[in-house]
């Protein structure tokens, strides 16, 4: 096999893995977003089965302490968690890239100030800041989205800034600026398109972090009010009953981990395919 053929094969492999991770991601999103179609029972219907029933044909994931169907609760909880993640990711994307791109374009003391602020925010443990905001705003889907979105912005800003800086140094931008094009226009029309893939990597990492943050905040008691539940709330409830039933905590735990892994995996594969494109060109 020639060197070219080997390289070709490797590129195919990266492509294949990338598609697989995308399908997994879309599949996971579809399952949660179609919760109302897929759920066999209502998520808050009490007594559709025995208390703490183990998995069976009627209740694939078993039932909880009030005899609610765990599969249905997980599907609906997952929908809330995924919506929170998507909302938070959008906020982080808009806020963070505006922040980073501004710093990258202007440079000088504006850059220094914006990035020092990002550093300061990142010096505070995420969970500490989240505690602040949630205790003031109260826990609702909207406040969880807002808090997670704001918390994920500084790291997004760092990433956007370095991507913009690298792009601004590339020959086509330098020559365009030299021939009199406006830098801001260039960034808006050209640079944004070129850094979009890198932003997409950051988006999927952010989504994974948002799921983790939501689960963590819900686990320490800042989640949704019952009977509504996100995945984190379900873990909290299941953990409180761990002496009665292992299934009640096991299935939400597995679901949260799978969701985070799927998001992280997509980001990782995307990054790998970007790297392989860059090295092959």
């Amino acid at each position, binding site marked *: 096999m020639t060197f070219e053929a080997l390289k070709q094969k490797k590129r195919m492999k990266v492509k294949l893995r990338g598609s697989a991770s995308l399908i997994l991601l879309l599949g996971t999103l579809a399952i949660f977003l179609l919760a109302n179609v897929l759920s066999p029972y209502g998520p808050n219907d009490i007594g559709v089965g025995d208390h703490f029933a183990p998995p069976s044909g009627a209740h694939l994931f078993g039932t909880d302490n009030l005899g609610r169907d765990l599969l249905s609760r997980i599907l609906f909880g997952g929908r809330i968690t995924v919506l929170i993640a998507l909302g938070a990711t959008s906020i982080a994307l808009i806020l963070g890239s505006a922040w980073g791109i501004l710093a990258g374009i202007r440079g000088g003391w504006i850059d220094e100030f914006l990035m020092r602020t990002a550093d300061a925010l990142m010096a505070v443990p995420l969970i500490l800041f989240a505690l602040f905001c949630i*205790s*003031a705003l109260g826990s609702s889907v909207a406040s969880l989205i807002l808090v997670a979105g704001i918390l994920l912005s500084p790291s997004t800003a760092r990433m956007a800034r370095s991507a913009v800086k690298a792009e601004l140094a590339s020959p086509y931008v330098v020559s365009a600026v030299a021939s009199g094009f406006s830098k801001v226009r260039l960034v808006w029309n050209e640079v944004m398109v070129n850094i979009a893939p890198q932003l997409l990597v950051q988006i999927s990492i952010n989504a994974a972090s948002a799921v*983790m943050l939501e689960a963590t905040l819900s686990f320490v008691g800042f989640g949704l009010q019952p009977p509504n539940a996100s995945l984190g709330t379900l873990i909290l409830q299941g953990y409180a009953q761990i002496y009665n039933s*292992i299934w009640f905590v096991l299935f939400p735990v597995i679901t949260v981990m799978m969701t985070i892994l799927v998001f992280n995996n997509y980001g990782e594969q995307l990054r790998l395919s970007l790297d392989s494109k860059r090295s092959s060109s």
Partner: protein
Amino acid sequence: MTKFILRRAASSAIVLVLSVVTVFLSIRILPGDPVLLKFGAQTGATPAALDALRESAGLNHPMLVQLMIWLGGVVRGDFGTSFISQLPVSELVGQRIPATLELTFFIVVIASILSVLLVLIAIRKPGSATDRFIGYVTSIGFSTPSFIIGIILVYIFALRWHVLPSQGFKSIDLGIVQNLKLMILPAFTGAMVVSPYLIKYLRTSILETRTSSYIRTAKGKGLSSSAVLIRHILPNSIVPTLTMLGMIVGFALGGVFVIEYMFAVPGIGSLAIESASARDYSVLQGVSVVVIALFIITTFVFDMICGFVDPRQRVLQVKS
């Protein structure tokens, strides 16, 4: 060296001040009147009484004045008093620090041992099945929230095997055996949260050192592998190791919040969560300042040591 120290100190100080001010402002900007929260629901709370309370808490001044008064207190170690228990915040935080420091210490020790061992096993044959397996476990570790690791450990060791208590804390004064027994699960949970970052970092930096040209030269001129290790690899590994230790301390401090809460360890992390649910903002403020300061000081100290042992670091960091 002086320029390096000054520059790093200045930038640490700026980050510290910025984050402390952010902590203060975020509480004032967010909606919710602490006085109303505490006394609004009580019967017989007249508007005049509420105003008096605001006055005594200093909440009637303009925000900038409040900020200055509060910062002045913080510098002197006075973080105000708790809205709920009326105790000085510094006292509340002070009581909780030993447990957090003990837990952080154990997390750092266990995580270091665990990661170094796993990395040494993994890099014996890079790309082998063992290496790949450790890689997979590490990437699953990245995706696992701390409390899930905690739940798994509690299930195995407390519920199935009944060898360890599922939660609680006893001070060392009450007997070291009891203290350690209760520390094992939270410490291992924390260590398993921190280790994936360490393993990834260590593996890359060791592989980089091994394939660098000066190692090839040293081998090529006929040095034995132990001499290469002692004279060339180890000295060049000091800086990455120190950086790594700084990283672990940082991660451990950030990770102890939920771990302390779920294992009922009375540290500053669980204090933060408790005061957040009670909306005791003055305590939350105090805890935040202490945690942020610990964070920044740790980073600064490790930067200093790195700059001291490796002159290249000084230039690099000043330039960037």
